[in-house]
């Protein structure tokens, strides 16, 4: 499903994103990626969604070779990957419903399908009662849930979440993680980048630890070991 072989990403000669990464993630897995700031976690995520191309090595995501993926196929790939980024916010001038619908609109999905899918995904994240509120009218945790709902509209095979609980308190963090677990149970591969020790330890799933751009540990049922 996701396959890194001997991958390096060098932004500039002095600025190295990741180095010599070997990593394989199978369909249906729930993988946490941990590591200190600047260790290359976001770089890894950007390589998965073809926002960055590898400087060296092979990256394959659901069959696509990221090093040579044509521009046109990038949008096809991204419909198969749900993305949650810290800087990937809701649009403030649209309601939660409209925000989620927007992701379908710009992919040319018809209005009927939109009215069918959006309530479904809003229900998955428990926001069906707040669909007509604007982002500033809901809490940070609810905003993040709406972001997750938006990432689900194409029924992605992979969900990549880069610090989805970054600014949230323990209760909201817990709720978000429960939603991610639920999505994983539906069969979606989940890649979770996080700083949160409790989250990783309570998950008891595979943990990949990065340090200075390389994988220093990769354990099934792992713990946060920094």
């Amino acid at each position, binding site marked *: 499903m996701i396959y890194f072989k001997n991958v390096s990403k060098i932004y500039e000669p002095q600025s190295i994103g990741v180095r010599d990464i070997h990593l394989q993630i199978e369909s249906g897995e729930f993988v946490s990626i941990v590591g200190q700031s600047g260790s290359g976690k976001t770089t890894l995520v950007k390589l998965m969604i073809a926002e960055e191309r590898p400087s060296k090595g092979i990256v394959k995501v659901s069959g696509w070779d990221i090093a040579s993926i044509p521009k046109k196929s990038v*949008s096809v790939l*991204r419909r198969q990957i749900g993305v949650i980024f810290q800087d*990937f916010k809701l*649009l403030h001038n649209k309601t939660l419903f409209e925000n989620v619908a927007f992701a379908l*609109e*710009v992919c040319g999905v018809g209005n009927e399908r939109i009215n069918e899918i959006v309530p479904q995904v809003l229900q998955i994240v428990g926001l069906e009662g707040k669909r007509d509120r604007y982002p500033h009218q809901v809490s940070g945790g609810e905003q993040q849930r709406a972001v997750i709902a938006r990432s689900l509209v194409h029924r992605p095979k992979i969900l990549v979440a880069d610090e989805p609980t970054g600014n949230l308190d323990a209760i909201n963090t817990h709720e978000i993680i429960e939603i991610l677990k639920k999505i994983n149970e539906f069969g979606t591969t989940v890649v979770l980048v996080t700083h949160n020790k409790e989250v990783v330890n309570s998950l008891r799933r595979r943990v990949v630890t990065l340090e200075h751009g390389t994988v220093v540990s990769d354990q099934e049922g792992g713990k946060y070991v920094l």
Partner: protein
Amino acid sequence: MFVILTRTVQFALKNFYRNLGLSLTTIFILVLTIVSVNTVFSVSALAQTALKVVESRIDISLLFKIDVPEDKILAFKKTLEGQREVAGVDYLTRDQVLEQFKEKHKNNPDIIASLNELKENPLGASLVVRAETTKDYDKVLSSIEGSEFDSMIEKKTFDDHAAIIKRIGFLTNRTKQTAITVSIILTIIAFLIIFNTIRVNVYTHREEVRVMKLVGAGNWFVRGPFWIETILYSFSAVVLTVIIWYIGLRFIDPYIAQFFSGTGFSLTGYFNANFWTIFGGEFLAVAILNVIATSLALYKYLRV
């Protein structure tokens, strides 16, 4: 497909309203540019008509001696009409020539008085020769001089209005040059303004664009609205210019009709006759200008 089109148009319209001030500025400067280009066209059309009017007044007038019989003159008329360079020949009888002469000098009582003193008509018959083009007059003149009829001619008058033609040409060139310079400057300004408008639009939509890219929107959805918007600018600018221009013509045309009385020329008529060529061409030119500026702005600020 239909969904994609209607949505892109919707997004484009939203863009338009979101930066309304900027959109209007862009259209305003485009209108100015088109108006100044129209001025170039108008000056050309006016100059051409003026030249035609002057040229139509060029002719060779041959005044025959009093005793030349009419049939000889008519025979001469026939030979002249047979020449390739001659466009037409009018025959004026002695009485008609006298009429014209009186008409021409009706404000000069001395001449009229002395004419009335004479019992006989002192003027001969006349032929008025018009050549095909202004350049042909020399040929026609020399052929007359070389012919057997030359001895029957009392007086040849040929006024080529060279001074006036030169003056019209000079004025036209000067006005045209100014208008063209202004048009070029405005075009450059318009280009920069469009570029900036699209740049600002991309900037105001950076969040939407980021969302679109990350959720896998096709390239058309990301760029389409900017393209449609730019075409919208071109179209509104041309339509607005048409309206403004025709209102302006209503005020100008009476003066022009007066100046060119008798020719039936009017700027409104000119623009009506060439409506699609002029305004269609201008729309095309403005659209191309817009598309180039937009491509540059998108290339620079909307890396996908």
